[in-house]
């Protein structure tokens, strides 16, 4: 993929040859994003100036560094007189939009609830949502567990994905609504036996620190592998997840900004679209899931405990 269309920076995904479904999906994504990026690169326009807003100075500094390193000069961070604001996280996004007369604002890593609340018509804003898309997570799951056919997905009101979810051919997505969150335990106990794997969306309420133990222990006891929602869960005991890291978010920012500059309008909020794969080797091995050499290259957890 990356050979077919060279891109600046490291490849988003090194999928092994022969993994058709994943490869095609990613190739399509890369083509779309690559074209968008290339279109922007071919326009010899000056850099867009952006102000960074984050809850912590360290986060802002780190992101600015990555933006400089990977931004290809398209976005330049400035302290004042910026054309737009990049707001990192929920709180910064809220603050940026609450400022009187705020200019264009792009939220980065914003949870679903904040997106729903804040991104309204005329807000001159958009957001790169926290988490990974369903398609990306399903691609990870299918890559590691091709035998899985019945995939359980548990959604709450705050989940990054909302029903109805569309299942790719050959898979059945059994979507279970969990509301209130206290129903999570009973529903897990009841539904897990019917599933080959459990796929979790990003959901700070349903799949946050307080429920990891319940979800992972219950599923492991019943030998149902869990995938997603993020690197943290993978390290905790989930098998694997597609995860956007800082560099992936920087690339997404470039894409959003390029669109904004080309059209004067923000594209709709969405997921970063660039991901890294994180795998918990030991959990994958316990489930006898094959971690191919191509995927081994991308595993980033458990080797550095």
């Amino acid at each position: 993929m990356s050979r077919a269309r060279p891109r600046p920076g490291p490849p988003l995904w090194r999928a092994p040859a022969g993994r058709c479904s994943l490869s095609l999906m990613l190739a399509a994504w890369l083509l779309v994003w690559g074209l968008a990026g290339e279109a922007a690169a071919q326009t010899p326009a000056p850099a867009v100036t952006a102000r960074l807003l984050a809850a912590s100075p360290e986060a802002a500094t780190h992101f600015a560094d990555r933006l400089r390193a990977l931004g290809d000069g398209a976005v330049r961070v400035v302290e004042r007189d910026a054309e737009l604001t990049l707001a990192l996280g929920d709180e910064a996004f809220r603050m940026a939009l609450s400022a009187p007369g705020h200019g264009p604002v792009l939220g980065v890593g914003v949870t679903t609830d904040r997106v729903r609340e804040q991104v309204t018509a005329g807000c001159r804003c958009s957001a790169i949502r926290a988490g990974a898309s369903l398609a990306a997570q399903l691609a990870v799951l299918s890559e590691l567990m091709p035998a899985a056919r019945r995939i359980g997905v548990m959604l709450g009101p705050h989940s990054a994905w909302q029903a109805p979810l569309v299942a790719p051919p050959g898979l059945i997505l059994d979507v279970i609504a969990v509301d209130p969150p206290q129903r999570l335990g009973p529903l897990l106990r009841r539904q897990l036996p019917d599933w080959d794997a459990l796929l979790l969306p990003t959901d700070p309420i349903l799949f946050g620190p307080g429920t990891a133990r319940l979800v992972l222990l219950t599923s492991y006891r019943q030998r149902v592998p869990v995938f997603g929602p993020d690197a943290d869960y993978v390290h905790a005991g989930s098998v694997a997840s597609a995860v956007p890291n800082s560099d992936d978010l920087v690339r997404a920012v470039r894409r959003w900004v390029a669109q904004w500059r080309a059209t004067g309008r923000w594209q709709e909020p969405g997921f970063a679209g660039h991901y890294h794969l994180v795998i918990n080797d030991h959990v994958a091995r316990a489930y006898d899931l094959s971690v191919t050499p191509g995927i081994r290259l991308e595993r980033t957890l458990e080797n550095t405990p």
Partner: protein
Amino acid sequence: MRRIGGCALLVLGLWAAPVWAQFEETQGAVPRVLTPARLDQPVSEVPASVTVIDRELIHASGARELYEVMRLVPGMSVAKTDGNLPSVAYHGTQARDQRRMLVLLDGRSVYQPGFARVNWNAIPVALEDVERIEVTRGPASAAYGANAFVGVINIITRDPRDVGGQQARLRLGNNGIRDARVAASQQFDQGAWRLSVNDQRDDGYDAGLAPLDTGDSKRTTTVNGRAVWEPGYRDTLTLHAGGSRTRLDRPYERGLQDIAEYTDESVERADRLFLGLDWQRQFSSSHQLKVSVYAQHNDEETNLDLCFNDPLTGNGGPGGGLFFSKELRDLYLANGGDLDQTLASAPADPAVQNRYATLLANGGEPFCGTGWLDVSETRYDLEIQDTLQFSEWARLVAGINVRHDRGESRAYLSGTAENVSHRLFANLAVNPLAPVTVSLGGFWEHDDISGELFSPRAGINWEVLPGHTLRAVYARAVRTPDIYEDQANINLEIRDLPPSYADRQALLGWAPAYFFVNQQSPGTVQPERIRSRELGYYGRFTAGALGAMELDLRYFQEELWDLVSGQLNPFNFEPENDGKVRHRGTEAQLSWRPTASHLLRLTGARIHTEANQGAEQRFAARDSAGALWYWRLGGGWWWSTAYHLARDYNDYPFERIDAQIGRRQRLGPTELEWSLLLQQPLNDEPVVFDENRYQDDQRYWLTVTVNF
């Protein structure tokens, strides 16, 4: 390794929040939940062929009794061989004995120590309480010790933390099928408990067909409970408790029918209790300690209500007492235990003649009484097992075990006998290269009966391609003689005689009075031994549009020697290590999921069995096969159908097809589930033995379950 799967996970520490969480100031962190996964051994790395029967397969099979799901295991001989007594044997040899395979329930052996058998009717668990069953096909004494001879069946019950709500179930069918179940569970802050009570009844094979004239109905009641408490995130305490009560109609003994008339039905009454406690501590994600202690006790007794015939006239009368006379016992011993010779010479023996005259002078009341075949067994077991992943490429499971067995029987042992065993075991798995796993294991044990024994196993698994593993295994194993084989002293006492026989010393020559036939074990029986070589393949892959497949192939050669092949009953007692068996063959099992809604499972085995005694081939089917198709129709409906073939058991082929339809649906806060199952034999042959016949071909039952 001892464990194939495992369930104790651990909150070990904290880890960084997701990448976007660095943007926030108040984002919490997810606790790290790891992992026995590091310590568990995946099936592809286990040095043995393994069949896992999970809840989906159990559900799809429609099995009503625990032993029936064993038909899903390739190479497993499964049948009710003796009326209502099921026999389950991997690479079956003798039809009635259950001596050569270890069965574990949550790690606790249900192999009964005193009389070397597994009583499938009395295993105190219902199918609904089972999470999964792991069957290790092949000798596994290196991991489990003596009696894991041809294989190991490990039944793992449901963790109460995974069970929600309450359940009531009713099942009705022909052949007297009347089953009921109630189950309860509760989650609490640091744990959970569950408890179930199950009652099963059926009429067995058909009553009224000789020789099962009195029927072989059975009633089994089991209680199974489990509680888990996590006092801290490193520790898990699990309490297991339960028991069973069985009432089995037993057919009349042919040997006794030759000399006596039954006056009442024989019923085997058995009660079992067990209590176990496991403590598991996760020192780290790579080090785990488990301490298990359990006690179990079972009592069995079978009544023999008989009126003994006068040996000279063949009719009822006081002369029947001669069979319990001291003089006839002395004659029997003088004839070296030759039954025919004793009976032939008795009329001419003066002492016997005098005793006969004494009995006749007693008044003519028939000699009627009750004999009891009683067995009582108790086991205490303590095991400490340490699992250590001491590097990325090496994992060691090691432990010690102390076990005390006690058997008591007035009929079979004429008292009490004990056996204490001490055991050490270690199994090492190393990955010298990423796709290669080398497993080395050994189990040393010493017990009072057999002395020192050592069982080794070596295996190598090579993942030649992702998802495709080749396997080579060499293993040796032993079956140790049980207390009965080693210390049998058979004395069947007669009780509840008429008042006119109160003075037994005067009338029978001794008190208490025993049946004249006596058997005593010489105490020289040696352990049975097996040597196994195996080449195998395990694959888990997708085949394009055909879907996902899991395939296991096994080619094996097994040599069994020093087998105790003769009968060991009161009339025939041959405790000799003179049996030899050789198995070689191929087995295959395939699970295929062409789509998300369909599961197809195929098993097959072709086994060539050579034995120096015919009895060792009765339960050895040369060809066996099974097919199971499970279809989730949608809307809560499902359909399954299964086909079972074994050709032959004792020259009788077994062939049957099952079909099941059911539905699960929610009704407000409750869930209703019902299913209808039909079993249709495909031939008119008896099962294993001529007396095992059904009068009606079909078996069917309706099951209704309410979860709330």
